[in-house]
């Protein structure tokens, strides 16, 4: 039996023809499963006839499944450590926890080559322009994992004058991993959760193949304090509203 499995795939139409069931459950499994018990023609649930010589070497699956199978097993994280959590991230890359088992060991120092930004640590106001810039530089499809309490919501340093309370104030986050720092097991769980998220995406509806190009996120500005360009137009109004509310509260 040759090792290389030739794959016939079709779009989601085939999925519907088989009643929502792929002919063979897993792409990689097809070879072993069929070697033992080839599915008879009348039982394979399809109107297509599979020739004798192709049985055990061919699998039919949906394009989504194949597309996601490739992506989920090669999520390349950006080599980008912010704080304490980065140390645990390195431990996940090391031999004991070893996330190369999930195809993620290729950590890229350049955002241009990476799929996943693990925000591993406290996001400070001084650093957030660079983080947003890095996020903008990553090509689609891109994912963000907020690792630890600080990246998720500011953590123990939330009240600090130089701390952004959560990276999701600026970039969209796909997976949050709690912990301070999260154990390597927790980070692995987060990465597996991300894989599950990737599994559920469809090539027909993902944003990077849609007609509207995704807009880069405006880079925050370092002023007397952090300035978010998205807030600017009605800045005075909002400050006045807050002051008015505070004054009203003080009266009552």
């Amino acid at each position, binding site marked *: 039996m040759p090792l290389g499995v030739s794959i016939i795939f079709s779009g989601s139409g085939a999925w519907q023809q088989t009643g929502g069931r792929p002919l063979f459950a897993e792409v990689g499994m097809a070879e072993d499963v069929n070697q033992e018990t080839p599915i008879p023609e009348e039982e394979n649930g399809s109107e297509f006839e599979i020739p004798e010589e192709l049985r055990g070497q061919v699998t039919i699956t949906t394009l989504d499944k194949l597309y996601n199978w490739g992506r989920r097993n090669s999520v390349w994280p950006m*080599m*980008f*450590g*912010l*704080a*304490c959590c*980065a*140390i*645990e991230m*390195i*431990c996940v*890359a*090391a*031999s*004991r926890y070893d996330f190369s088992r999930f195809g993620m060991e290729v950590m890229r*120092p350049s955002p241009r080559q990476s799929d996943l930004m693990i925000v591993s*640590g*406290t996001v*400070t106001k*001084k*650093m957030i322009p*660079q983080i947003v810039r*890095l996020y903008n530089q990553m090509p689609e499809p891109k994912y963000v994992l907020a690792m630890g309490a600080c990246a998720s919501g*500011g953590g*123990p*340093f*939330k*009240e*600090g*004058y*130089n*701390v*952004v*309370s959560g990276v999701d*104030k600026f970039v969209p986050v796909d997976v949050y991993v709690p912990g*301070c*720092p999260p*154990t390597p097991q927790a980070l692995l769980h987060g990465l597996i959760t991300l894989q599950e998220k990737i599994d559920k995406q469809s090539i027909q509806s993902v944003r990077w193949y849609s007609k509207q190009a995704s807009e880069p996120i405006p880079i925050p*500005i*370092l*002023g*007397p*304090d*952090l*300035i*978010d360009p998205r*807030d*600017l137009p009605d*800045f*005075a109004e*909002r*400050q006045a509203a*807050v002051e008015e509310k*505070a004054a009203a509260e003080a009266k009552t």
Partner: protein
Amino acid sequence: MAETESTKVLDEIKTKFGDAVSPDEREGYDGYLVRAENLLDFATFVRDALGYDYLSSVTGVDYIVEDKMEVVYHAYRTSGGPALLFKVQTQREKSVVPSLVSIYPGADFQEREAWDLLGIEFEGHPDLRRILLWDGFHGHPLRKDWREAYFEEDQKPFGNRWPEGKVYRIEDKVPFNKNVKYPANFTPEGWVPEGEGTLYASLGRMEKSNGNGTGSEHIVVNLGPQHPSTHGVFRMVAELDGETIVDLKPVMGYLHRNHEKIGERNTYIMNMPFTDRLDYICSMGNNFAYALSVEKLMDVQPPERAEYLRVIMAELTRVVNHFWAIGFLLNDLGAFFTPALYAINERELILDVFEAVSGSRMMCNYFRFGGLARDLPPGTAEVIRDLAFERLPEKIDELERYLTENEIVRVRGEGVGVLTAEQAIGFAAAGPVLRASGVPYDVRKAEPYSIYDRFDFDVAVRYNGDVYDRYLIRVDEIRQSIRILQQAIQDLPEGEIQTGRPQYQVRVPAGESYGRVENPKGELGFYVISDGSPTPYRYHIRAPSFINVTGMAEMSRGQKIADVVAILGSIDIVLGETDR
């Protein structure tokens, strides 16, 4: 002995300076108050005549009630012994103090930090810019009248957050629900960012003429803050002539987490888990220094068993840190991740011990004032014994067999990033960086704390002060730590682990204290001032990673740009501590 020594010093100072210098007689305080105009003379005298050649810590304190700003200096002798404290007081508004950079170059970054966070201007400082925050930031956050956008209370625990039964969140009270605070009348629409003009101007870019009329310009290269070999979010701005470094400016603050501001609002015990997050590779060592400094104020001693366990944990931390540092130095030299994998293997085994005793791998939060959080769980002593006698000695031999005579390590390390002994003392470098330059200064021997005077160990020292020696010194120190571990685990007594009842809120008498330990990266000191309230009045950290970087420019000048990452790796910084 110490008494006569200090009276002798006092006499000498009195005869020389008369009224300009007076002993600090506030309750619980120590040292001398120096008039600002005499500071330079006094510092020169202290360094040259009295032999206090090592200015360990410079920091400021804002006494808002007295309307005074104070700068506190801790000087030591590299031959050992206690500190000489001296202080300068000025007015609070527009405070100006002479800079000591010309006498102690190690004051450079610390004075810049005091300017950044407290607004004290140092007259004569060569490059007084903000260091942790950015140019254009509004105000000086550590001043007592500077309020944050979130959490404006003076101290935690907070007052009633549910006044009249109404729940409100602090986020609702600020514009945009964000943690930002703009000065009055500020309109962001017209704001022009200050940029980094002053940073680049400080490099002193110059046109180089090579004599035949064709000038070549120096170029400026930025490394970081996102760079794989900056050990976090560190940034270096290098001015290059071809490939050779002409000048280099470290830029930091990308992980400035307002540790000191938060620490001055927290109660004493609440700061313990925050210290874990300073040098997050050696959390036990940070706990140790903080516990020591508060215990000095409270005047409590931990029981015998707790002292032994503290030493065991501190030495395990040292082994962890040096394994990690060696692994990642090799990363920087280009041996990508393979030596680090060997190093992390051993680290994981020690982290298992930490997890067993404290419940957390990295953020141990294990020390308490007057003791420890909990005792060793059953079986852990055997694991430590096995590590100390069997596993670690074997593994450090193995690591050395792979690396020490390795040609690439030698070629990339020998003669690169040299810091002479005089320079190292001047820059107030600490820990392996200082000892690799031939200064056998180790706080465990120079001013023994805890029970370090009971153990038989040597201070590792190397003499070339280059990257290779800074690698070797870490190997030596691992071996010495294993020696201490072996003795400590053999002698570990039974008994209590906490003096008195464990307390949630400790009573700390008013006064100042400076507790320092020899952390793996160097001298870690906590300068704590108590005013008798549940929270520290001033809480300052003398961070070795921060001060060791002071010598970075000197080490890099004349080297190639590729060596800068090796030099940085050999200093071994952790950004949590550099930026705090």
